[in-house]
């Protein structure tokens, strides 16, 4: 079995987002970048499948050289080799086309990634890759088992789960609790340094969307405190003042 895991390199979930004064890009001062949390779930499940089936595991990232610590972490967790497409991942179609291009050369049985990146939250790349390759895609997948040539999955739907079966190859957008996050051990970290990392120029670069500017939500007004002993007054305020009841 051949598995490709696609990861994003994004600001940690605790980041207080701010932009440069002209609103043209993220102010990365003091920002800690990590593997996207959803991608981390996909990666963790891929490592488990590798252990179970002896699969080969390739990690792919579309990003500039700054993303290499995240790629090395994925290698330390158990990926065998890595591919970095050397470009800023600014448009979902562009990223999907890069992934599809690599897939066409390698015939992966499974292409796993997070349900969405936590920077742009588009949740588009897995579906576009599936369409470009002409194979099924599912998201958000919270359970994945492989039996022979069939993937047995659970997909989260509003208020519950949907259980699915489909033949490989597949593209999946993953989320918790598909696997427990893993922490690389010292042996993994040491071996990651010598694992192959190919850097490739983007193929057929074209963007369908372009973000022109960024902004923050307007600051929140002060919180109106209600004494606990008069808690019942909340309902009246929600009705007459906030007008939400």
């Amino acid at each position, binding site marked *: 079995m051949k598995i490709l895991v696609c990861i994003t390199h994004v600001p940690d*979930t*605790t980041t*207080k987002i701010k*932009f440069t004064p002209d609103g043209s890009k993220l102010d990365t001062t003091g920002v800690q970048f990590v593997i996207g949390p959803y991608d981390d779930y996909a990666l963790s499940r891929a490592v488990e499948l590798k252990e179970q089936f002896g699969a080969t595991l390739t990690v792919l990232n579309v990003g500039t050289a700054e993303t290499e610590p995240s790629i090395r972490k994925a290698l330390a967790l158990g990926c065998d080799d890595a591919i970095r497409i050397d470009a800023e991942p600014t448009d*979902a*179609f562009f990223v*999907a086309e890069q992934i599809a291009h690599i897939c066409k050369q390698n015939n992966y049985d499974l292409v796993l990634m997070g349900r969405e990146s936590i*920077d742009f*939250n*588009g949740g*588009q790349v*897995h*579906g*576009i890759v*599936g*369409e*470009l390759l002409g194979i099924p*895609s599912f*998201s958000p997948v*919270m359970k994945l088992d492989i039996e022979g040539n069939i993937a047995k999955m659970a997909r*989260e*739907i*509003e*208020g*519950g*789960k949907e*259980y*699915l*079966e489909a033949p490989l190859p597949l593209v999946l957008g993953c*989320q*918790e*609790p598909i696997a427990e996050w893993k922490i690389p051990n010292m042996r993994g970290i040491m071996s990651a340094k010598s694992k192959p990392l190919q850097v490739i120029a983007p193929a057929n670069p074209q*963007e*369908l*969307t*372009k*973000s*022109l*500017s*960024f*902004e*923050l*939500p307007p600051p*929140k007004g002060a*919180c*109106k*405190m*209600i*004494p*606990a002993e008069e*808690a*019942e*007054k*909340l309902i*009246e305020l*929600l*009705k007459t003042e*906030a007008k*939400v*009841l």
Partner: protein
Amino acid sequence: MSVLIFVETAEGKAKPSSLEAVGYGAKVAEMLGTTATALVLGDAQELEKLGNYGASKVLHVADSRLNTGIIQAYSNVIAQAVEKENASVLVLAKSSLGDAVAARVAGRLKAGLASNVVELPNLSNGFVVKRSIYTGKAFANTMISTEKKILAIKKNIYSVTPSSNTASVEAFAPTLNDSDFVAKITNTEKATGTISLPEANIVVSGGRGLKGPENWGIVEELAKVLGAATGCSKPVSDLHWRPHHEHVGQTGVKVSPNLYIAIGISGAIQHLAGVNSSKCIVVINSDPEAPFFQAADYGIVGDAFQVVPKIIEAAKKM
């Protein structure tokens, strides 16, 4: 040229978020000087009523194989409807199905897709939409440069007042292939009789401050009285006090209701990311230093087990 709106149904009826999408799509159509067509898949009733929300026509694919949301089949049908109507814009409401389908349609039609759209597009210089990014912490103004455009809108961003207009209903028979049905849905588990969390106008959530799953009665009762959905924080779902589909936050469900009431949730930045699009936030917490108060409109410092019953009583009298 037209605007096409994909309408999701539940038990044959349009979901509220899809009615909002129809209203939004009709407004975009008006801005572009064209008309709005709604697309409904599978068995459904009262289709002409989508006219109340601004659709002038409804395309109906009455194929019972489409009664459940098969991602491949839906994507294929929607892409064909876009071509048939020569739609320049496809609008849909964000959901677990809508998101998965929108991405495939975008890939198939090579159409620029913006998700989490929070406002009507700005047409003064190209086609620019404002969308929520960084899980609700910021916005991007994004230009879509393709001829065909897809907008996945966030809930509760456009208010539409229903009219008495009705839409004409037209049967549509797209070409479906066996390969569209290669994935089999073997089972569906769904909480019944409760209000769907992403669709809810009011959400009542509980956190670790409630001390245990046996104490969820006050959350459920307040939700029931207010007609609200129940949610929870990540630690609560990690501890299996509540099911995963109730987890609100950065890696859980993102909600944007009119009213969000948080009981015993301290307000970690990851939880705030899932709720910060709510119109009004109420925080009840025994710790006056809980960071959630900074993001709240109304706050009560006190013991939830004393405060919440008072609120339930007042709500019952409403």
